């Protein structure tokens, strides 16, 4: 189809809106807020992509999706083709289309975005992903089993991305999960109204079709260690993607009162354990009339919006900096505002007040103002003397970040950095041979797509470590900006046998699935 050259003048000027549930209605249910594009919406939005030669969006994507490629297919009404292009790099389009912070990534650098609103890349990606789920499309490449066994610890986004790549390379992949259901933060953390469980189920069942095995109820480190996976269970390489976990408490008086909980606890009870349906499900949840959530990241927004849906009359956001510094996605802040969350910027909690019976009665805060920029480049909030004030609340949720989960450090020789996260080199290899790590347990809390990016990066390193030729990495000399490697293998090593020979070859499963 011969298309006229598109220019910024000829494309539809406004970004195609996505239908959303009415804020008043949706604040009372757990149905998805954003309803997704129709085919017409998607076609119109695809028109807005200039297919510019620079492709800044591809560089802006942590996993390097061929964005113009899939958008062009949508424009050609070839949805299956668009799905094929997407899954060439990203196996989980329905998830990423929903939860990526596109405004800081692909859409943030979009050429159209320089003069108009950027192309809605995330919405288009989601549209293709949803269509694939609806139509039951899966792209299972030809997989040639290579007798390598790969173990993945953690079934969150990092683990899933790594598992997909290793399975495609022909490895026999097993993913271990401590909870009773796979998905990690996608399952326990992100609420249904942002990422429905059906979408996670669909993406996981796709991974299973690749031959990936999921073992739930398995706490690696305690049930068996990372070292045992390599020495006794016959894994040739292991990827650790266990997430950061360990929520931070404020360390103010009243922290341990009943009614004070971490956002992780609130979200896990609600999302994974279905406490919202208590007593049909057995897990209870503290139901607040007035809920104060401390923090303004994406997790804080999720906690607030969950609280509203659980029936809170008032939900406050307490944040010590101003709106500009809030780490949450703009869209999430906006959604929370629409639904009726009251934002109290420049307020810092000083104490949680008790009712004399061990429960929360309210919170004492102090007003802040912004001073000089700190290490993070954000203006440092400083206390306004004598500005303390109290307000009433019966549930307080802390969403102020997490620390490193200590289990890996307690149970393995893998070296940690000074903050307790796993130390890795540039290729995400840890101090133990054959063991790689990525995602929040390496970087500290970040986003879903960054974790996926880390999972894929680790997969490339694992392939090189195992001596598997990586078709995606043709030869690039150092001069050309490459790594002097052919198919991911260092040229200086090509005459060395890299395959580890196991004494007990029967232990290596040969039942890799095609």
């Amino acid at each position, binding site marked *: 189809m011969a298309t006229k050259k598109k220019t910024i003048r000829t494309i539809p000027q406004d970004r195609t809106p996505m239908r959303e549930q009415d804020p008043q209605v949706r604040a009372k249910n757990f149905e998805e807020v954003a309803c997704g594009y129709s085919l017409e919406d998607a076609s119109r939005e695809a028109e807005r992509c200039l297919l510019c030669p620079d492709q800044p969006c591809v560089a802006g994507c942590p996993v390097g999706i061929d964005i113009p490629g899939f958008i062009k297919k949508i424009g050609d009404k070839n949805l299956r083709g668009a799905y094929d292009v997407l899954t060439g790099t990203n196996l989980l389009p329905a998830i990423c289309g929903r939860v990526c912070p596109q405004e800081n990534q692909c859409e943030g650098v979009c050429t159209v975005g320089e003069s108009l609103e950027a192309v809605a890349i995330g919405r288009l990606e989601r549209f293709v992903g949803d269509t694939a789920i609806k139509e039951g499309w899966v792209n299972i490449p030809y997989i040639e089993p290579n007798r390598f066994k790969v173990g993945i610890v953690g079934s969150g986004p990092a683990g899933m991305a790594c598992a997909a790549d290793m399975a495609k390379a022909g490895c026999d992949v097993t993913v271990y999960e401590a*909870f009773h259901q796979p998905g990690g933060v996608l399952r326990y953390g992100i609420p249904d109204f942002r990422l429905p469980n059906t979408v996670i189920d669909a993406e996981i069942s796709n991974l299973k079709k690749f031959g990936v095995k999921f073992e739930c*109820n398995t706490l690696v480190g*305690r049930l*068996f260690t990372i070292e045992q996976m390599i020495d006794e269970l016959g894994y040739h390489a292991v990827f650790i993607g266990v997430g950061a976990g360990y929520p931070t408490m404020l360390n103010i008086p009243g922290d341990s009162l*009943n009614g004070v909980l*971490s956002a992780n606890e609130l979200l*896990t009870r609600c999302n994974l354990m279905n406490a919202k349906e208590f*007593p049909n499900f057995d897990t209870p949840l503290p139901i607040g009339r007035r809920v104060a959530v401390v923090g303004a990241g994406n997790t804080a927004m999720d906690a607030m919006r969950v609280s509203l849906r659980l029936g809170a009359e008032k939900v406050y956001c307490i944040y010590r900096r101003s709106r500009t510094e809030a780490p949450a996605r703009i869209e999430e802040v906006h959604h929370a505002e629409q639904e009726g969350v009251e934002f109290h910027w420049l307020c810092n909690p000083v104490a949680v007040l008790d009712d004399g019976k061990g429960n929360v009665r309210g919170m004492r805060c102090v007003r802040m103002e912004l001073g000089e920029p700190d290490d993070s480049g954000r203006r440092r909030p400083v206390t306004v003397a004598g500005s303390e004030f109290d307000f009433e609340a019966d549930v307080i949720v802390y969403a102020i970040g997490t620390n490193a989960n*200590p289990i890996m450090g307690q149970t393995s020789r893998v070296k940690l950095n000074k903050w307790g996260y796993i130390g890795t080199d540039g290729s995400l290899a840890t101090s133990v041979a054959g063991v790689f790590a990525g995602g929040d347990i390496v970087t500290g809390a970040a986003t879903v797509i960054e974790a996926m990016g880390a999972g894929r990066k680790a997969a490339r390193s694992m392939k090189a470590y195992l001596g598997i030729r990586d078709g995606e990495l043709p030869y690039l000399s150092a001069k050309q900006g490459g790594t002097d490697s052919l198919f991911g293998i260092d040229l200086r090593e090509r005459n060395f046998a890299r395959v580890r020979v196991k004494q007990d070859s029967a232990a290596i499963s040969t039942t890799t699935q095609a």
Partner: protein
Amino acid sequence: MSNFEIVRREDFSEVTYLLEVRHPLMAKAAKAGQFVIVMLNEHGERIPLTIADYDRVNGTITLVIQAVGKTTRQMQQECQVGTSLYGLVGPMGIPSPISHAKKVMCVGGGLGVAPIFPQARAFKEAGAYVIAVLGFRNKDLVFWEDKFRDACDQLILCTNDGSAGMKGLITDGIQVALEGHSNIDEVVAIGPPVMMKACAEATRPHKIKTMVSVNPIMVDGTGMCGGCRVKVGNEVKFACVDGPDFDGHQLDFDDLMLRLQRYTKVEKMASERWSESCRMTKQVGPSALDGMLPGKGVQKDLLELPDPFEEVPGG
């Protein structure tokens, strides 16, 4: 996926029962002081239970449970030999440090008697002289007396009403042991927080190191939710990954007891609702559940006494 088969069951009393569950990997990995999280069915809650024993040869772990809340009562009814648990994960927590102490007192109160057993045995195997002090309400609730007699050098059994062993509270038994032995190096105590607190107070003047094992409300058990946080000295610790054993002279027991009551009200409601549905099922006529229903004998006083080893509502 979930194949955690129950291979043996023993009922110690109307409310206390033992389940032996097949899990060869866990039987191999488990150490004294660790715990598991159990889910009865898909709609269930995650409840932490301390591992009372493990059999590395037969590949099983043993749990001793007291039926007081909705989940533990439902388990009492439904967990028969041959059935499976929906979820079982562990062993969790840092294993109890088995030191080279020469003389150790192991104190177990009520259901805490079960999890103190692996510790008593481990100390004995490490060469220590082990004195076990066990406390029960009455003779009917006593279990594992022989098991302890075999594993320990001395056994002091106390019951509140004197129907077995000496009459008195567990602290009286501790006093007897302290008077009989001036050279106890270490005390390990497991039981309701009230009991562990009393035990810590009894040993404080003697400056004997006293470790207690806590079992607060948990969801994941992997350090992710922070629901199980306790105060130890001036620090906040998560029982699931930093514990479950802490120095009894440092632990804030009042804080622990308060936090255990978080869901008492809703738990009671769920429990009553469940009892009602059982009663209805029974009235409707012959059902598979007939004959397996517990009597109405779930003692009310048990429901009102918070005991972390009985049931942790809202896990």
